[in-house]
């Protein structure tokens, strides 16, 4: 089998490449160049910096596999960055890393596999892709603290059939051990946390610089509609946010709703954050079969799974949930098996 290994320069994808080679496959390592600043400079933070590409290149050389840097800046700009700005300026909570996985890493790379003369795509995600019931099924990674199945929940069965996650069977400690035993330079590399194209700057200044027209000042209002403050753009506010609201109040206030049409931020008491359920869009089922009934749902990357009932595109939580907002990805599980994923369109109380 010939495998295209997406190497970010981190320890997980380094070990994914090593394990794939050990299994006797023909490996081609690639790093995706996704973003450069206004003057073409490479990002300095996040998962795709110049030094990361350099680490990936050196690991590929250590493993003696060919290595290339592929330019996907155009796809990334259109599919991820523009969407990120659009989501923020529309009052939705963007998921740039999920979109990047879905649109660039999986959609584009999987569609290009034949062009690169490869059979499968290998990444360093912590999830397990298991052949069962005659098809490839996604399960949570072995290391519960590192499980990334949530961000992969919108992969289709056909995409899963051409994808492998070799480190999903290992704990993070075991991954580092494999890397250290083989002397890979990324063995002790810290994990990246920042959103790569935002880097160390905050979201607001990124959106302000990238889409200067996207910010309109507006009121901060209480639940009863009375104006209690002003803000200079809905960008940067997230449902559930407590800090930085710019309003003085005796009791803690939270963002409960964002209304981009009127540039209004609604704040209220913690109880008002409660969401009974959500409507969904872009439902994807890993098995290809639609599912309805009782599911376990997870709406944050490392959030607690909660039980819910799914009927068509409506999901009703069995207990009201806080800080659920439109734009977030929601993943459905049956035990550790991923049933599918969707985007949250609207919330209802």
């Amino acid at each position, binding site marked *: 089998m010939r495998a295209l290994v997406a190497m970010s320069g981190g320890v997980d994808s380094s070990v994914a490449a090593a394990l794939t080679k050990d299994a006797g496959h023909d490996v081609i390592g690639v*790093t995706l160049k996704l973003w450069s600043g206004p003057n*073409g400079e*490479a990002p300095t933070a996040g998962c795709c910096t110049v030094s990361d*590409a350099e680490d990936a290149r050196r690991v590929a050389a250590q493993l003696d596999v*060919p290595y*290339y*840097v592929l330019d996907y800046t155009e796809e990334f700009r259109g599919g991820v960055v523009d969407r990120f700005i659009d989501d923020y300026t529309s009052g939705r909570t963007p998921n740039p890393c999920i979109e990047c996985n879905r649109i660039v890493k999986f959609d584009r790379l999987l569609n290009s596999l034949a062009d690169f*003369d490869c059979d499968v795509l290998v990444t360093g995600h912590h999830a397990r892709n298991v052949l069962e019931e005659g098809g490839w099924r996604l399960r949570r990674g072995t290391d519960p603290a590192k499980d990334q199945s949530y961000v992969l929940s919108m992969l289709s069965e056909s995409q899963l059939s051409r994808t492998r996650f070799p480190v999903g069977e290992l704990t993070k400690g075991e991954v580092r051990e494999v890397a250290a035993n083989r002397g890979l330079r990324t063995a002790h590399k810290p994990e990246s946390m920042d959103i790569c194209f935002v880097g160390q700057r905050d979201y607001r200044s990124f959106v302000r610089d990238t889409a200067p027209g996207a910010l309109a000042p507006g009121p901060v209002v209480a639940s009863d509609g009375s104006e209690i403050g002003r803000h200079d753009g809905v960008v940067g506010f997230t449902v559930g946010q407590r800090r930085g609201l710019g309003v003085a109040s005796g009791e803690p206030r939270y963002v409960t709703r964002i209304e981009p049409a009127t540039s209004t931020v609604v704040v209220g008491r913690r109880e008002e954050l409660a969401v009974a359920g959500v409507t969904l869009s872009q439902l994807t089922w890993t098995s290809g079969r639609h599912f309805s009934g009782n599911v376990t749902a997870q709406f944050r990357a490392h959030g607690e799974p909660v039980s819910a009932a799914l009927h068509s595109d409506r999901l009703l939580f069995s207990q009201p949930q806080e800080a659920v907002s439109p734009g977030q990805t929601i993943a459905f599980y049956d035990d550790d098996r991923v049933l599918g994923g969707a985007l949250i369109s609207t919330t209802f109380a």
Partner: protein
Amino acid sequence: MIYLDHAATTPMRPAVWEAMQPYADEVFGNSSGVHGVSRRAKNALEEARERISATIGASPQEIVFTSGGTESDNLALKGSVFNPSSRHGVVTVATEHEAVLETTDFLRRLGFPTHVVGVDRRGLVDRDALLALVDGDTAVVSIMWLNNETGVIQDLAPIVRRVKEHHPDVLVHSDAVQAFSSESIDVESLGIDLLTLTGHKFGGPKGAGILYVREGTPLEPVLHGGGQELGRRSGTHDVASAVGLATAMHAAAADRERFRSQVGQIRDDFEKRILATVEDAIVNTPETDRSPQHLNVTFPGVRNQTLLLRLDRAGVAASAGSACQSGASEVSHVLESMGLSADEARQSVRFSFGWNSTSDEAAEAADILFELIEGLR
């Protein structure tokens, strides 16, 4: 491996490495020293300088040794702009190498007046537009002789003449890095003030270049220090590289006739073979005013990064013309300046032949290329 990336760099010609070795070994002296081993090094350096100057019709003191094309371009532009005259502007061309364009942009950011002139569909500079931008502020006009991505050749002499006619005080520089293998260079008949060459483009060592500086040309150094190279470029000499550069220049100049006919024939045959098999291929290298070694081709519907990866896997080394530090291929500013869209530029590949290219390997590469393109479509 079939190596079709000679415009990026070349393997050393025979005898070059051999000529260099003593100066990395027993004749290790600092050419500025006062003792025997230094005198031998100094002697070799000056001999190299003489041989180099002879190949371009210059006198030895007009040769400044540098670390290569990028440094020479930087010295030509910054040196002209920083020198204490009343002229501080730069006029250059959109299809120049980054070493010129980025230096120009740096000077612009410092507040110096800079102008970048466009080119036509074939990549030839608009002479009238260029001349119109040269004025009393202009310190230096910089025009690449032979383009690294397409191989188009500017007819330099008449442009130099016209600039000098109207503005005798303006310095004219040419980045001639790609030209030396195929073009006879005579700085006198060219009338040029500054000219950049680098050894590794014609079978010499990397890290070894020169800037030709016409006698009497005011030039502020970029590297200040011990005052080597008559104060124009400080730093301990790399004598081995200078000797290697001289050896390669001598060999390349002697081989020029053969290079033009034989390498040109190999390139032309390769071009015909591609056009006969890949019917919709578009050649971006113009039919006339072209070098014998470059060929830039657009393959509609085939992204160059994919094709280059597949070519590499199949043992053929080519390139997209320019690469950034990460190694990703970028949209070519040269092709975009010629009017190609970003998508067309992303479907374009440069093949460049060199002193050791053979017609057999070129034919084999053309067949591999055809098969890969068929498969990718």
